[in-house]
């Protein structure tokens, strides 16, 4: 199995608070990993560490073959992170935002219309300023920006929040397609009823460490085991 994420005893600080206090994790190709746990457990920090955004205070970590201790910037271009904020510019239109982020990430911006279609962002909305979008439309646009990048590792923090039923279904499908295409997905979520079936693995995070790690009902890269 090719190792995509490999953490050993990782400690990461927010200020001086050890948000991760010795996390160990191995994630392989095409896995869909659900990260669950109470608020403040360290889920978002775990995703940010995997994205190469946080300094690693102690321990060892490798993501997509990049050593995060010595050079955490190198991995960034290959991951897609959907965080709590959507990283969209209010005064640009939906399409302009996506084209900007595509060019910034050095991918072709021809993929932009297709990605917007994929996320069900209606044609009439594309020339609207992001400022005028609803929270759900904004979230879809942000996820479209991740889709455009075609990342090898998807890091989704509460991807379902603020979305209607069709939006949630759409996100599940996007995640499944990504995994089927060989990407690895880690998603932090509280919506267990929805995500438990989706994931190939269930991690529980508490106190800045991974406290349980179970196989899910779905096999990596394959279809329903049931």
């Amino acid at each position, binding site marked *: 199995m090719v190792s995509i994420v490999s953490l050993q005893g990782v400690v990461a600080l*927010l200020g*001086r608070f050890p948000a991760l206090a010795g996390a160990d994790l191995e994630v392989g190709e095409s896995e869909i990993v659900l990260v669950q746990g109470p608020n403040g457990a360290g889920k978002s920090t775990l995703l940010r560490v995997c994205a190469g955004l946080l300094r690693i205070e102690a321990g060892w970590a490798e993501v997509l073959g990049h050593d995060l201790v010595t050079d955490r910037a190198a991995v960034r271009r290959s991951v897609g992170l959907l965080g709590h904020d959507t990283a969209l510019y209010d005064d640009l239109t939906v399409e302009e935002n996506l084209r900007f982020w595509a060019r910034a990430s050095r991918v072709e911006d021809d993929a932009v219309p297709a990605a917007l279609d994929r996320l069900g962002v209606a044609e009439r909305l594309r020339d609207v300023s992001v400022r005028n979008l609803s929270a759900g439309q904004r979230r879809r646009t942000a996820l479209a920006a991740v889709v455009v990048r075609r990342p090898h590792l998807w890091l989704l923090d509460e991807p379902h929040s603020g979305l209607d039923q069709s939006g949630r279904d759409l996100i599940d499908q996007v995640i499944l397609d990504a995994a089927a295409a060989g990407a690895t997905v880690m998603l932090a979520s509280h919506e267990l009823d929805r995500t438990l079936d989706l994931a190939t693995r269930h991690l529980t995070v508490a106190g800045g460490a991974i406290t349980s790690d179970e196989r899910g009902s779905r096999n990596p890269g394959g279809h329903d085991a049931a």
Partner: protein
Amino acid sequence: MTNPPIDLPAHTGSRTTRLLGVAVLVGVVTMILLGFFVAPEDDLMADSVRMIFVHVPSAILTYVAFSVTAIGSVMWLWKRSVWWDIVAHSSAEIGVIFCGLTLITGSIWGRPTWNTYWEWGDVRLVTTLILFVLMVGYLAVRSMDGDESAVATRASVVGIIAAVNIPIINRSVEWWADRTLHQQSSITDGKLEDWTLFTMFLGIVVSGVFYTWAMTHRFRIAWLERELRDGDLGEAIAARRAEAAASGGVS
């Protein structure tokens, strides 16, 4: 740590700092005696020349202190050394005091000698004022909210910006004023009497010793503050892991 040290004092002093402190006190008394009774009056400035004994040492220590801050800033960015970060912060705080004193004594001295409290045409005065504002800005950045290492990084960049820009500020003021009232290096042109020179250098030494004393105490205070605020990282990690254990045991 087998024998716990007995009777540790609850203050930031030590034998060394007490020695330094005594040296400063002796130095100050000597300065007053030499400055007011031994050093002769100046032909031009009469007794007002005795202001030099507090003004010049303050000015020199200002630049020493801010140079240390600049070095500490570089070392923080380069090595992420907390030790240097505290040094930079402590030195800036003491430097601002010396800088303020330089401006105040300078302008008090300016009144009898130049007949004005403030002379915009004077290069060093104006540069020192700008430096003062910059370092107040440095301390303002220090007191901003945000996590500790972010604050240290922001402050370090300010320290470096100030250090890099001060020469060009000085240059610009120099050209702009195109004249300066300041004593054209009164130290080297031999116009000062021997005792005046000696007392001034003694003043620099005494201020330097005071700076060392204050730095030591200020450093230890900053260290204690960190200890109180963060505790030990190892303990924090242990506490964090205990949360995990409480919620179901580590796999």
